[in-house]
């Protein structure tokens, strides 16, 4: 017990963080679990008609899962390259906000930032932001980013090769992997009524407009559910009081 207290005091003295080993373990847990799901992307992408090279290029160069799934899904549905890319791009915009938080937390030198940028994604942000100090955040970012990047690209390759080997991916139910991935990413975001309202409205717009608009466009219009709900809320909130509410997160 005294040893524990001393150890605790030592940790506090060296900056109040948790041991490096624990950070590495957390980071590897996330990196490996999510990295393996590159397999699902490789299969989905190859099943959508992209070549092996195109599939691997997406994981190497885009490296943000939801955007990759969205792009191959839109291309498979016959969307134009630009509407497909636009949908994937808007999904990637959230990474800018992770970058904003991370740049303060990690305090990276300016020359390192262009290299670190490719790893600014959901998982690295989640692990880094969960650490109590800068050292832990930096280790978490590095280990999560490295393990996830390597595994995601490796499993993408294996998935694409596997899909080519088995031929008809739909017969194996692999066309359900894409929507299941989206649902798994979406579920933890549906915390309050606001998120659920946005999701519900987006589903209605996305499905309702599908038969009448060119492929890829309904998703972009469905994205307007977000500003629409925010705007409606802002009106409702400011109407009774008339002053601008000081909103805290």
């Amino acid at each position, binding site marked *: 017990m005294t040893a524990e207290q001393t150890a605790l005091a030592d940790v506090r003295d060296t900056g109040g963080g948790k041991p490096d080993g624990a950070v590495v373990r957390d980071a590897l847990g996330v990196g490996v679990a*999510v990295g*393996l*799901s590159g397999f699902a992307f490789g299969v989905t992408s190859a099943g959508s008609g*992209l070549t092996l090279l*195109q599939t691997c*290029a*997406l994981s190497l*160069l*885009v490296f*943000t899962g939801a*955007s*990759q799934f*969205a792009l191959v*899904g839109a*291309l498979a*549905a016959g969307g*134009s*390259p*630009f509407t*497909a*890319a636009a949908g*994937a*791009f808007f*999904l*990637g*915009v*959230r*990474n*800018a*906000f*992770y*970058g*904003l938080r991370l*740049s303060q937390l990690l305090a990276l030198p300016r020359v390192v*930032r262009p290299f*670190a*940028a490719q790893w*600014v*994604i959901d998982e690295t942000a989640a692990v880094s932001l969960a650490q109590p100090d800068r050292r832990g955040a930096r280790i978490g970012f590095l280990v999560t980013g490295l393990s996830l990047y390597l595994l995601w690209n490796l499993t993408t390759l294996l998935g694409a090769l596997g899909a080519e080997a088995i031929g008809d991916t739909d017969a*194996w*139910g692999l*066309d*359900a*992997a894409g*929507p*299941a991935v989206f*649902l*798994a990413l*979406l579920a933890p*975001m549906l915390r309050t009524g606001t998120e659920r309202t*946005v999701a519900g409205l*987006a589903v209605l717009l*996305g*499905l309702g407009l599908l038969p009448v608009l060119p*492929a890829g466009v*309904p*998703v972009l219009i*469905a994205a307007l559910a*977000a500003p629409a709900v*925010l705007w409606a809320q802002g009106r409702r909130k400011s109407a009774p009081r008339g002053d601008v509410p000081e909103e805290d997160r």
Partner: protein
Amino acid sequence: MNIWIAIGATALGCYAVKLAGLLVPAGVLERPVVRRLAALLPVALLAALTAQQTFADGRALVLDARAAGLAAAAVALVLRAPFLVVVGAAVVVTAGVRALGG
């Protein structure tokens, strides 16, 4: 060729927003409205994409084995299953329903 254009545009755009977050001075994007919008945009996109990739066949709406697969994924999520199990459940159930129903 079209596919390479889409890949190039997506790669450039996604890299640019990642880098922008690291380079832009704090405060520019820190307004509450911008933050709220950035958090809600993926919700709208993911919800629409989930629905479309489950119920769309080209530009027609259909109810097929994928719906059963997605329901299985939803059940797995409610049971707090790991990510890969959620995706696996959707794939297995979709394949199973197709095998049974032809």
